[in-house]
């Protein structure tokens, strides 16, 4: 998100914050969020793709709503405004191709209108078919769950992305020689996928609250959280959406504070540190261990300020609109151990994995026929969870290694904590504080060293950089 978009979003959020009428509020938020999906999508070399991907995002959201909503709740009458609004917006954006100038609402000139109409028709027919012949049964929801994961893999496995690019280029009769996995950059899909999976899973378990099409699609593509989270829960989000915004000075003050803090973190601190942060090029150029540590520290803080800056901006925008979005970071680098670090770093992601992977797998292992010891269960679930979180960032060996690193670290801390908990509690407070400071330093370095795997493209480059860090290069 560029500073210009952020300023536009602040202005939009400040204006929308004044809309208190229920239906207007939700429909305006839906319209602005849907436009943001197109506006934020980066330009792509495959012709038309930067228009089709946002359209598919909206179609996916609408179809998933149909799938997750009980038949009696999906009346046309109650949801037609949202459906027509979405269709009209897509069509209006597509028609901008006939203007003599380009609008900043789409990454490039929209594709042929008949193609967009065809896509809308297919989505509408699919929606009608699903609405007519299905109800949110377990099998259908599981199939949708798998489909979202397959889509996710298509984007995150470079070889699959490349194949998709080749296929789309072939359809467009574009050059195949310049095809790359980077051709398929789908704005915010990682976060959108989490929200879709959350609602599909909660429908399966009967926990999903009934929501309208407008509410559901707004939740999926809510513009402040579109590109970098946080990953809200739908029941909390809809609660805020249905509550008329309070325009108290405290809310404006809090919103302003978070927005300024976020922009300072992102554009002053993170973007400055990015200049000297570790990357695949300078990792091989750095000559001494001392400077290698400087690059690594710069990367650690750049990552934190970048991500937590975006979160602050999202929370500030949300506050202007009357939403109290969940926090994502709580001084993670000051935490005395790895478990606490992960309870305070990208909190909504770890909560998501805890709710939809860690806890169910732990329960399954505990209640299985073959009884496993507690340490084995902890080891298995923590390792698997962290490897999955790694793979969410990208399906590469480095992310697998990063997940293993974190999983083993969490397991070791868990065992160490079990062994020393009683002794630690009996220490004088002064000693506990001193040990916590030492723990925070140790944890920060453990995490920073793991960022080597995160920042660099492949294991060989990472090993070489580790050698430089420890003077063995």
């Amino acid at each position: 998100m560029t500073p210009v978009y952020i300023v536009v979003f602040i202005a939009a959020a400040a204006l929308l914050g004044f809309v208190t009428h229920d239906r207007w509020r939700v429909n305006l938020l839906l319209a602005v969020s849907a436009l943001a999906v197109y506006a934020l999508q980066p330009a792509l070399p495959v012709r038309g793709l930067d228009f089709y991907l946002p359209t598919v995002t909206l179609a996916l959201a609408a179809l998933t709503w149909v799938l997750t909503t009980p038949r009696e709740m999906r009346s046309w009458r109650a949801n037609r405004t949202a459906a027509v609004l979405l269709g009209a917006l897509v069509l209006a954006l597509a028609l901008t191709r006939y203007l003599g100038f380009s609008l900043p609402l789409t990454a490039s000139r929209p594709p042929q209108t008949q193609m967009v109409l065809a896509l809308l028709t297919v989505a509408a027919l699919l929606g009608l078919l699903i609405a007519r012949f299905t109800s949110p049964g377990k099998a259908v929801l599981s199939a949708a769950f798998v489909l979202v994961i397959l889509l996710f893999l298509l984007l995150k496995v470079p070889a699959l992305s490349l194949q998709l690019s080749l296929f789309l280029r072939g359809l467009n009769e574009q050059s195949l020689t310049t095809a790359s996995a980077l051709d398929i950059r789908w704005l915010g899909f990682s976060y959108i996928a989490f929200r879709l999976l959350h609602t599909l899973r909660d429908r399966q378990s009967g926990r999903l609250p009934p929501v309208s099409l407008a509410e559901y699609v707004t939740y999926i593509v809510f513009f402040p959280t579109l590109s970098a989270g946080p990953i809200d829960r739908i029941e909390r989000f809809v609660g805020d959406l249905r509550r008329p915004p309070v325009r108290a000075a405290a809310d404006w003050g809090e919103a302003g504070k978070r927005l300024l803090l976020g922009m300072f973190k992102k554009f002053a601190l993170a973007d400055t540190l990015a200049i000297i942060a570790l990357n695949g090029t300078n990792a091989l150029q750095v000559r001494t261990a001392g400077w290698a540590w400087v690059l690594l520290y710069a990367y650690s803080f750049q990552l934190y300020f970048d991500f937590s800056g975006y979160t602050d901006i999202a929370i500030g925008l949300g506050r202007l609109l009357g939403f109290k979005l969940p926090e994502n970071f709580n001084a993670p680098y000051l935490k005395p151990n790895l478990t606490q670090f992960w309870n305070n770093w990208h909190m909504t992601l770890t909560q998501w994995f805890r709710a939809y992977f860690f806890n169910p797998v732990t329960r399954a292992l505990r209640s299985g026929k073959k009884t496993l010891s507690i340490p084995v269960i902890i080891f298995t679930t923590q390792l698997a969870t962290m490897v999955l979180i790694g793979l969410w960032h990208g399906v590469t060996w480095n992310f697998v290694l990063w997940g293993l690193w974190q999983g083993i670290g969490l397991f070791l801390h868990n065992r160490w904590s079990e062994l020393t908990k009683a002794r630690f509690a009996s220490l004088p407070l002064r000693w506990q504080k001193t040990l916590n400071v030492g723990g925070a330093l140790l944890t920060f370095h453990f995490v920073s060293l793991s960022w080597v795997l995160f920042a660099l493209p492949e294991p060989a480059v990472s090993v070489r950089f580790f050698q430089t860090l420890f003077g063995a290069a």
Partner: protein
Amino acid sequence: MDARFLRNVLLKGLLLFLVLDLLAAALPSGVGKLSLYNHLLDGRLRFPFGEDSARSYNLSLFDLDAMFASHIIAAGPKPDGEYRVIVIGDSSTWGTLLRPEETLAGQLDAADMQTCDGRRVRVYNLGYPTVSLTKDLMVLDYALRYNPNLLIWPLTLESFPADKQLSSPIVSNNAARVDELIARYDLPLDPADPSLVRPDFWEQTLIGQRRALADLLRLQLYGVLWSATGIDQTYPADYTRAQTDFDADITFHGQSGPDLDETQLAFDIFEAVLAAAGDIPVIVVNEPMLISAGENGDLRYNFLYPRWAYDDWRAMMQARAVSEGWNYLDLWNLVPADQFTNSAIHMSPAGQALMVEQVKLSLQNQICP
């Protein structure tokens, strides 16, 4: 947090910003002298210059204070046992496509020469990649505060045209320094020349200077990567070689010969450089250039020069060197054509080494006759 509190925060913030902004405009700026180089960061072996900052860990800026503060010559007072040689000049001296140790200054410094009285000869690269005698004068004028013992000055005809003197961005963006030089050396330059950029009051506020301030900050940041990697330039494996085939064009800055109009060349500024050096010995070097045998090579030596213009200028330099007793090295045809890289004056390390050998002999004569 109530509305009154928010209003007060906003007003105080705005007021503070306004005061700081106006103060910045009203007070003389010396912020470029503040530098992490030579303290936390290694001093650069040549001036900051470059466009592809993300890969070269370098950038171009116009703040001479900052440029010198980032250079290793500003590391501290000159040590007693040092004989300080500075090399000024254009991109050939700065070392386009050469690593710092491969440049003229770098190779001379590595030669580990000593004066007769046992002082170690340290050679500093103060070249800057634009061609203008005024730029050379400006750099030398600043460099004198670092107490050089000897000046080496490679140059080429392209630095001489009078119409080019103020067009170099580093010159045009340092109008106050140019004014000083005009006054001190009675230079034939017009202070009202529109090329000279003169910021108004508002352009001197923090907002007006935001780009320059950001450049200063980026210079410090790229210093981290310079210190960490020793890289200050990109070295592409493949680049466009210097042109060797030409159109049948024999014009040089609007002249077609057969004689070069001496009044159109900035010999006054050339003399001013020698005057600025004062008692410091100067070795003037006509730097090597590519001599093409390609199409129309009989009309032009290279992309820069038609033969008639260059020959005439070389004759003028030779005559003046003799009449005025310069220490002058004419190395124009020293380096074979295949030892030039992406321009008619940019040499390969091997080509540069040929030049170094000649300059070294002259330097040796100076430091220990």
